[in-house]
């Protein structure tokens, strides 16, 4: 029973989700929306579980005095401080619960944590990519064989299409780059997308029919 009930539930809901897509009726849409509410509720539980897991892993690291426990301490302090300022805010001189309200979103600490911590950190990490791409391009983009040479030529043409220093030659490069993007790139991309789609259908069918059962864990 422990294994059969989940399998039956997956079969019923899996088949329903497939069939409802082709039934444009109010009742079908109502059930579909009702099921989506369940996804949100389950998602909230998963979030709580995720926070608990994150807390436990890092708390254990600190309590067992493992190396790099300083990072865990910073993580836990940041986690709870952000949570606190997400729920509570000082409005009109007094602290109160302002979760997801206009006052809460505009509160000094919540806004400044975003503006002066999250924002510079994310921007810095993303901008470092330019340095690593340049270094990686120098070492990896080499004409070792025919295929590598083709890739190299395509990359150079697409990069040069943005370049105004080429003068009249830019027109031809731009045309060649557009052809590369619209013909070979599009053909390969569409093939990949269709391939992924078919793979997803096959996997979904395996799950619905109970052939693929790894989501239930061991036992």
């Amino acid at each position: 029973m422990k294994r059969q009930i989940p399998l039956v539930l997956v079969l019923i809901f899996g088949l329903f989700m497939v069939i409802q897509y082709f039934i444009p009726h109010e009742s079908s849409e109502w059930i579909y929306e009702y099921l989506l509410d369940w996804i949100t509720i389950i998602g909230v539980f998963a979030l709580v579980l995720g926070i608990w897991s994150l807390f436990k892993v890092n708390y254990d690291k600190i309590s067992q005095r493992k190396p790099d426990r300083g990072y865990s301490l910073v993580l836990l302090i940041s986690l709870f401080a952000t949570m606190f300022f997400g729920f509570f805010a000082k409005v009109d001189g007094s602290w109160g619960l302002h979760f997801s309200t206009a006052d809460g979103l505009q509160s000094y600490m919540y806004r400044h944590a975003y503006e002066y911590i999250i924002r510079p950190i994310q921007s810095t990490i993303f901008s470092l990519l330019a340095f690593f791409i340049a270094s990686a391009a120098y070492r990896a983009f080499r004409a070792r064989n025919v295929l590598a040479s083709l890739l190299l030529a395509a990359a150079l043409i697409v990069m040069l299409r943005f370049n105004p220093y080429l003068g009249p030659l830019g027109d031809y490069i731009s045309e060649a780059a557009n052809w590369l993007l619209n013909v070979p790139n599009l053909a390969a991309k569409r093939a990949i997308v269709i391939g992924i789609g078919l793979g997803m259908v096959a996997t979904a069918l395996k799950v619905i029919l109970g052939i693929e059962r790894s989501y239930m864990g061991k036992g």
Partner: protein
Amino acid sequence: MQQLTLSVFQPGVLISLAVIGVGLALLLRWTLQGREVDRRVIFAFIFVSVATPVLFPITFEVKATPIAKALFEKIESLPEGTKVMISYDFDPAMAPEVLPMANAVVRHCFQKNHKLVFIAIWATGQSLLNQTLQQVVAVEFPEKQQGIDWCNLGYKAGNEGVMNVIVTNLKKMFPTDVNSTPLEQIEILEGIQSCRDFALIVSLGGGQPGPKEWILYVGDPGNVPIGAGTAAVSAPQLYAYYPKQLIGLLGGVKGAAEYEFELMQKYERFKSVDAPGIRMMGPQTLAHVVIIAFIMLGNVAYLRTRRKKGGAA
């Protein structure tokens, strides 16, 4: 027709080319002598190539590509008062590329007197949306009133789940706007039941969920035109959906610059506003020149080594 033009006789161009040219010539000499270029030297070059045009700005003329122009023309062709939804699905990492195009699209929509409904599917999008509201809407369009000309529904957690619901029922996911005003009391949302009631949805973002998910969960099932602005790294993935499922696409800084330039060409008032997309084309273009030069240097070094090995054999 060339998409980018610039006059070479600008201090920024001449200084950048001189600094980078001399440096690269020295590196070519090193390479020919058989010395590998250290990665710190590459980092230094990228720093100089990005910093020089920031200190000595370079001005460009950018011509829009058909895929970017398609989005511009779509917004241009909508009748006055059309309701458009704009979704902020990005984070600060993508903001330098995506925020300029978001601001340009908002400017264009308000210039055409369209009604805008803002939402965010990413938690980080909400604050970036506030930035547009404070720096663009409040400053350049003070006459536009919240609730009548635009409304901010804020962020909703649930990723694709949110899209799946709002394609049939907007109120279910967004019962109130960001100020806790019930949707029924917001004038702009009169007659709006779901995403299907919008003439256009513009998704701005480059991750998941982003423009691709808007196409899959809202555009296709709801038969709503979707336009997109995305980070350069995500743009090639979205080409596959253009032109039927995606009416237009702005890709990276170049896409933002193209849209800003179209806006300036069409409307005189935007010639004096800040155009970060066009401004950032200078550092980006020069960084590309340096990367291309390093790829070539790498290949010179590789061919030299191969010839040496061949000769030894």
